[in-house]
């Protein structure tokens, strides 16, 4: 499942953060990365197709990460995509909310490439089983 050519969509309104995530993904060997600055742009790119994995921030203008997650899960075409949520909060209620909305994983800022690799491995493992 973890094909180095798979295409990621990194969604964050803060371009520095998109760059950080992009760099971390590169460290893990994933170089095919597209970016979106909020949920609305992300949905446009997703419906155009070709994306294999979504990494999204939670807090964004226009359409938040959790709204994006719900929109993805509600769209039959892309509902199967793995979605990794990134947030600055480790609050329990947030984690539960994300899990209930169908997040594939949840990662708290700041994180290292190792943490990201670990979370992604778990997601791939789950997907392999399912």
């Amino acid at each position, binding site marked *: 499942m973890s094909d180095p050519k798979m295409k990621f969509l990194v969604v964050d309104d803060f371009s*520095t*953060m998109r*760059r*950080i995530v992009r760099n971390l993904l590169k460290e893990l060997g994933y170089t095919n990365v597209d970016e979106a600055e909020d949920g609305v742009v992300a949905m446009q790119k997703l419906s155009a197709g070709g994306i294999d994995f979504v990494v999204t*921030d939670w*807090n964004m203008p226009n359409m938040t990460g959790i709204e994006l997650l719900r929109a993805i899960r509600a769209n039959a075409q892309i509902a199967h995509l793995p979605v990794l949520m990134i947030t*600055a909060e480790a609050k329990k209620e947030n984690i539960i909310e994300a899990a209930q909305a169908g997040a594939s994983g949840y990662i708290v800022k*700041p994180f290292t490439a190792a943490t990201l690799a670990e979370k992604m491995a778990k997601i791939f493992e789950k997907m392999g089983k399912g």
Partner: protein
Amino acid sequence: MSDFAGMEDLLQDFLVEAGDLLSGVDNKLVDLERNPHDLALLNEIFRGFHTIKGGAGFLNASELVTLCHLTENLFDKLRTNEMQVTPDMLDVILGATATVRSMFGDLERSLQPGPATPQLIEQLKQALAGQLKGNSAAPKQTAAQAAVSVPAVAGGETEPDWNAYYQAVTGVEPVTGNLPVVDTTAESDEPHLNETVAEQIIQAAVGRRTTDKPGYQGPAGGRREGERQRDNSIRVDTSRLDQVLNLSGEIGLTKNRLTALRSDILNGKNDTDTLHALDLAVSQLDLLVSDLQNAVMKTRMQPIGRLFQKYPRIARDLARSLGKDVEMVLEGEETEIDKTMIEDLSDPIIHLIRNAVDHGIELPGERMTMGKGEKSFVKLEARQEGDHIVIVVADDGRGMNPERLRAKALEKGLISDEEANTMDERQSFNLVFLPGFSTANVVSDVSGRGVGMDVVRTNIQKLNGSIDIRSVQGKGTEFIISLPLTLAILPVLLVCLEDQPFAVPLSMVREILPIDPKEVQELGGRATMVVRGEVLPIVTLAALLGWPQQRVPEYGVLMQSAEQSFVLAIDSFAGREDAVIKSLYDFRPKGVAGVTTLSNGQIVLILDMKELLGSMGEQRVATRAQLLLEGQIAAAA
């Protein structure tokens, strides 16, 4: 040693982006003060702190994370209506943004920021717990004491003491409310800004060292490496870069066409079709090159809003420290301007705003008696007019009194009796730009030490711009800054002295007139000419350059700068050009702004008229006899 080895790129990105974000937050806080229940504002401010926190985490800037985290939590409570914004709370939050900015300053110098003052953290925690104490006298006292300790630092040549600034700006109310900032020794009843306090306000809002303020004459070496790096990076819309790419591609194609035509012609093929094709290719290249120049210039253009964002906060803080109610109105924030100019405009505009708030705007009581609203407005507007950018700083205050300005300048010995008597309103207003001029009666300790306005004008002129004043007593004052779209290309007029052409900036040229010896009159030992009722001195280009004058000049160029108009006497013209200015490597003769190459390959000096006039002093003006070479002609005859 850098604390961010390997992360410098990321750090620079973060600082640029987070800096913009923070300016936005500051601005929204000022709005919030007026609309404390605006949910959209609360959400945006919350997200601002949240985003900065997220980025800071990756840079391991834990103290910045802590501070943003607390502030963000406070806004979370505010936006969920768990709490209401109070003025005290807002002061604490503004203190927090000032500290965040100081921390950005540390990061810029590649240092991990130290913790915020325990006092600020404590107040944020109190606010979070809903127990923020009213502004007791104690913390204010601390802030004031800290403020007192700053001037020694600000005046010194060494790095400002950041700790002093920290303490000064992170007190409950850094510079606001009822701080003892009002100078009671002033002759007028009007309170004026304390230099130190004003400096702190600007420092807190802009996040720069005092050494960067206008008028600072010290060595520029104080600027750190990181800051220079930051200055050098620019964010460009990719569509603009694509356009550059497209055009250079097309130029490449045209070049290929020309190469083919060249070999045809060299091989003796010179029929009409070939020449026509050559003509076509050259015209096309001409068009493409000018498009490319434009497109490249556009990559340097930035919306001026990024600069404007800082000002509402500064205006608010300055106004509050004077007990005035000022709202800043921004217009034309989308107007685009060359990035280098944005940086160089920052300080002059701060100064004009500070001037408007301090001198222009009346106290609320005075406004009421004048039949004006208690609240006053300072407008900052940008717009493009032709090939110029116009920036206006306007207040609705008391306006300027030309008579008082003249009397003051006379008293200070800046102008003579005669000059004072012949001055019109506009010239009187322009007196404020003279070095050493100040309308404030008190010289010590209060605003208006005479540094500032002259530096403002010098800085604007360095950008090939001009500044003008319009003022109506009782209604308000407008400062109008006019700037060229770009610094790279300067339209010039080519004037000749004997056979040597020189370039003068076209922006100063009003008109060109023949010099008729019969119309040259002598007034007070100077050759003058009457142009539409206005008596103008004649200055010969030969005298300006220190050349011997060989013949009677035939033409006069009516030149106008902010402070004076005069007729520049020259021998002939060589036309006008859009000069691409090249500076002389490593040396700069007085009065020469740079050089340019003409279409025929000739190299021409671009003259800096202001500098030439300045260096000549009074002797620049010839007598009628000198100008017309009367003695010599008589001798020859």
